[in-house]
């Protein structure tokens, strides 16, 4: 399932939100091997969003190292981090993933616009987008529909197709099923797992729902890898 090459590594990471002395996060050690699927469980306020921001490079650690595909995020400029994110990471959020006014095709191809290397891995972007949609169980004609007209379940599948296109080395899914009903959750996860395995993607899914655990290679509790620092005044 996975080889030993780390795709993601965090070492002695400490971060404090600027202007907010009361909240900080420290992650002594955390990593993902290539091709591994990991479920990160944590309650609200456990620092999941901060951890994802650190991995995606929208914020940088005060100390320690965050390495994605062998590149130390802190060694990149802000602009380079944005491009690096586009090249290396596919993202799926809980909801409101898509530009509602754009069609499905434009939404799926959007990350390629900012990631030339990822784009170069896709020979025919439009055909690839259509194929991903079909593989994720979306109707063929959905490609030209406005994203805002789709059901929430369909929108999450389009977000999954967007994360998968161009085979980024890491996909981060932030509670992608929490806005779906139970039946749709199962269908979505089944299709998504099949596709992420087909593409050999390393997957980090964040959730508070432990029932999903059996589908992953590894389950990690947020409280085991990270410490939230709160100062009371």
């Amino acid at each position, binding site marked *: 399932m996975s080889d030993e090459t780390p795709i993601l590594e965090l070492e002695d990471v400490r971060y404090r939100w600027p202007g907010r002395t009361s909240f900080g996060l420290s992650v002594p050690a955390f990593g993902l091997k290539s091709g591994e699927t990991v479920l990160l469980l944590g309650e609200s306020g456990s620092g999941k969003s901060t951890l994802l921001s650190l991995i995606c490079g929208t914020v940088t650690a005060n100390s320690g190292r965050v390495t994605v595909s062998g590149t130390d995020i802190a060694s990149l400029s802000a602009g380079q981090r944005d491009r690096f994110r586009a090249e290396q990471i596919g993202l799926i959020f809980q909801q409101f993933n898509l530009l509602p006014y754009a069609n499905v095709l434009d939404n799926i191809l959007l990350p390629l616009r*900012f990631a030339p290397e990822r784009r170069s891995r896709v020979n025919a972007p439009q055909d690839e987008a259509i194929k991903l949609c079909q593989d994720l169980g979306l109707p063929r004609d959905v490609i030209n529909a406005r994203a805002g007209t789709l059901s929430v379940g369909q929108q999450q599948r389009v977000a999954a197709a967007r994360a998968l296109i161009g085979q980024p080395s890491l996909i981060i899914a932030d509670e992608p099923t929490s806005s779906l009903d139970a039946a749709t959750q199962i269908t979505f996860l089944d299709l998504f797992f099949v596709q992420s395995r087909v593409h050999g993607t390393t997957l980090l899914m964040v959730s508070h729902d432990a029932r999903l655990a059996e589908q992953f290679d590894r389950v990690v509790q947020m409280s085991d890898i990270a410490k939230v620092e709160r100062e009371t005044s």
Partner: protein
Amino acid sequence: MILRLAFGSLMARALTVGMTILAIALSVALFLGVEKVRTGAKASFADTISGTDLIVGARSGSVQLLLYSVFRIGNATNNLTWESYQDIAARPEVDWIVPISLGDSHHQFRVMGTTTAFFDRYKYRSGQSLEVRDGAIMSDLFDTVIGADVAATLGYEINDPIVVAHGLASFTEHDDQPFRVSGILEKTGTPVDRTVIVSLKAIEAIHVDWKSGAKTSGKSTAAHVIREMELQPQAVTAAFVGVKGRLQVFGLQRSINEYKQEPLLAVLPGVALQELWQIVGIAETALIAVSGMVVITALIGMMATIFSSLNERRREMAIFRAMGARPRVILGLLVLEASLMTAIGAILGLMFLYIGLFIVQPLVDSAFGLWLPIDPPTLREVWVLLSVIAASAIVSLVPALRAYRLSLADGMMVKI
């Protein structure tokens, strides 16, 4: 793709964006409309008289001479004696000369005595001649030809009698020598429309019983007696002169200005019109300033619309950021949207302008004698449109910079 997304984003907010575009379109149409009226008025003004090389009158100022001789505004300080007039007429450079005699009025309109040559020589709007709409030009001593506005305002028709008043705003009338309307001129958009034209001899005829500006009491010479008289004018108010060759204009002008026997002034109508326009031009500048302010107001309105949409669009910006867009892409996207809105508004405004011009052109021409040409946009107008779009891009930088800072702070996670 980014352009398509920007367009899609605008379409998604069709109502507010539509209102903003409409405001920009109307302001652009107003601005260009004012520009059209201004250039039309300027051209119309410059076209009030053409084909005349010199206007000669008693020495005063060039603008004053132009005002009373062409625009019938104000009065001459002095007259041009008949001897001087004949001296000028006899000069070898002079091709033609038309005298005019002003001083009397009919209701609110000025009466002008002249020769029939006036109808051949007076040109306007790049060489256009006066046309008689009804009737004919004067053939009898007591015939008059009236301008289109005179006929329209006073409801005159051919053969209607009219009585000329002595001087301006006077209660004394030349009621013992009534005139007959022999012709009505086509509308020209020039002061001729507001003029009652009689022959030079008729001006003498109605003043037969007058001495030193007052009527000799109890004396009333019969019309048939007047017809038999030698009606030689002693003086005229001014004269329009055409020279044989254009190069001779300045020489003739100088010699008239240095005329020893009488202090005279000869002006080139084009130059005097330019001087006059500079005075009128202050209103022109004010008009442009006001319409420019309307455009600026519309752009500020657009800025407010973008500002108010920022909060609801933070999720959209976060998606862009998550997909790898730098904050400056967000900034560029908002500037692009503003430029798109303004470009659409500018094109729409241009369409409004031409539709408006097609509708009002005949109305303005008949009401004010102002001809608004429907030409393709001039280079200046294209520059105006491009400047408005550039201005909108600059104005949109204010909310765009705010969006830049927001997206930098939000990253890809928005907690609203």
